[in-house]
């Protein structure tokens, strides 16, 4: 995982939570209920679920340590995760950590399936546990924001962004989901999401953006159509895919600023 300072992470988290969070309805792995709009009512439940997951994941690793390669059903790791309501809470609130959880689950699973040293498996498990606790912290923070009316309700119907800056925000959310889907080992879904994001979102703003910074558009064009799909296709690993996405996010932040400025200077219709 790319190293980011604790302060930077908190700032990024707050920024993400205070922005419109999630406009997509189509989520994998279970139904998203209105529970995600009443997080504070369920914090105790989420807390219990994270402890339960910690125990279950730890149990799988313990069993591996005891029995060895080929004796443990590692698919249980995925089933445990998909069973909890906490799953949709973090998926709707903060996709980057959701991606880290999937990365952690598959990190443990693959290490066990490959017969890695127990120390290596424990290291992957620790990474997974860390992601779970981070996720719980993010959901608690989101619950506070929700109570204070500072975050938007999770949409139950799909909405379309209407302005250039809104489109950029939507693209950034979608790219987080690309990392999540890749981490979930759904590579085809991730690639399709990249393609759809380009065709349905970026393509709609790149004309306006190219008037402001042609080199930036050229660079993002390459990211959307070459760099990111290739990173997924070559199975470069979650960290590599995340690195590509984080680089794109920075370029998109710049693009957003340019579009806001262009819109301010745009002539009025009437």
């Amino acid at each position: 995982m790319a190293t980011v300072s604790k302060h930077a992470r908190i700032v990024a988290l707050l920024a993400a939570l205070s922005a419109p969070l999630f406009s997509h309805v189509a989520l994998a792995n279970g139904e998203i209920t209105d529970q995600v709009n009443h997080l504070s009512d369920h914090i105790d439940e989420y807390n219990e679920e994270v402890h339960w997951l910690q125990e279950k994941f730890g149990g799988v690793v313990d069993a591996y340590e005891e029995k060895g390669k080929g004796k443990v059903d590692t698919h249980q790791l995925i089933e445990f995760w998909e069973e909890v309501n906490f799953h949709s809470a973090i998926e709707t609130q903060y996709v980057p950590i959701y991606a880290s959880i999937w990365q952690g689950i598959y990190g443990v699973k693959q290490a066990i399936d490959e017969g890695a040293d127990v120390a290596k498996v424990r290291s992957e498990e620790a990474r997974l546990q860390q992601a779970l606790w981070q996720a719980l912290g993010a959901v608690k923070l989101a619950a506070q924001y929700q109570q204070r009316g500072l975050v938007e309700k999770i949409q139950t119907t799909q909405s379309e962004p209407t302005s250039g800056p809104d489109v950029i925000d939507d693209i950034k959310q979608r790219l987080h989901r690309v990392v999540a889907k890749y981490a979930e080992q759904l590579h085809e879904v991730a690639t399709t999401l990249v393609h759809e994001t380009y065709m349905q979102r970026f393509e709609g703003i790149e004309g306006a953006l190219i008037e402001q910074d042609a080199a930036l558009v050229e660079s993002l064009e390459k990211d959307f159509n070459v760099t990111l799909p290739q990173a997924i296709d070559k199975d470069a690993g979650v960290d590599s895919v995340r690195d590509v996405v984080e680089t794109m996010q920075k370029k998109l932040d710049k693009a957003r600023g340019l579009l806001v400025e262009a819109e301010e200077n745009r002539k009025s219709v009437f």
Partner: protein
Amino acid sequence: MQRRTLLRGLAAAGLLGALPLSSTLSFAAGNPRSVKQLPKLEGDLTLYLGRGEGGLYENVLDAIKDRNPGLNLQIRRGGTAALANTIVAEAKAGVRRADLFWAVDTGSVGMVTDQGLAKTLPEDIITQLKPGFQYPRFSPVTGRIRTLPYNTERVSPAQIPDSIMALADSDLAIGWAPAYASFQSFVTAMRILEGEKATRDWLRGVERNAKKYAGELGVVMGVERGEVDIGFANHYYTLRLKAGKPDANVDLAFTNNDAGCLVNASGIMALEDGDLPVNFIRYLLTEEVQSYLASEAYEIPLVNNVAMPQGLPNLDTVTPPDLDLRKLADLRPTLNMMRDIGVL
């Protein structure tokens, strides 16, 4: 390269013979209306809006709402083809939720008009539009023309054939975006104008020297970088690239009276009777809105006597083909053909 003027070409290519109102409209002109001449819009209106232009259509809609506080405008947004399908499906189910449908391409307009769901427009709306863009049941709003962006360092204008069909036999390195909707509409136009076999041969011929891009801005940028000599793209990508990069090594060429210089259009139709939907359409055809979309989105105004977008080179020397744009709705055979050949 043999070229004629756009306006003369539009008149020559006009669809007047095919349209019920054409005989009285041949030279309809006059100055476009100002928004100041229009009545206030009051009441509830639901618009289905096809996705496109990254917010500029939204700016127009916001301006109309600001000017008409008594208007309760509900907007459903989505892909144009998906919305057209929704309108048809809703009609079959006996419900009608949309009062208006603003589509970014005329092919999707055809899907709805072919089902008899669009209302006939008043003559004063139709006569505001340029000859060749006058239809009884929908109003084109703005247009975009198919062009051949070429790299000015690698190709001279004299090397570029004035026939789109001749490009299949040239040795020029070509950039294209087969998955892109505008390209598919262009191939549909070719299929209608030149026939199935000629279009198949053309696709195979071009594919020999073609480099594929995801979208048409990508094509234009590939041309500018010199990855290819020439490409197929709507006009505005090149104009916008040149606005951001004035020394870009790219310019526009046009073919002559064939699908290569097709003018496609966004279009709006009324799905309910009454003054309100029709008056809303009149707002989109005002000089203010037409000029705004020309200057900000580089779209071609289709109302008479509104200035073209700045920087559109040689547009007055282009001849679009004679084609009823609604026929572009017949996309399925095009997609089947492209898949069959392996370019899609």
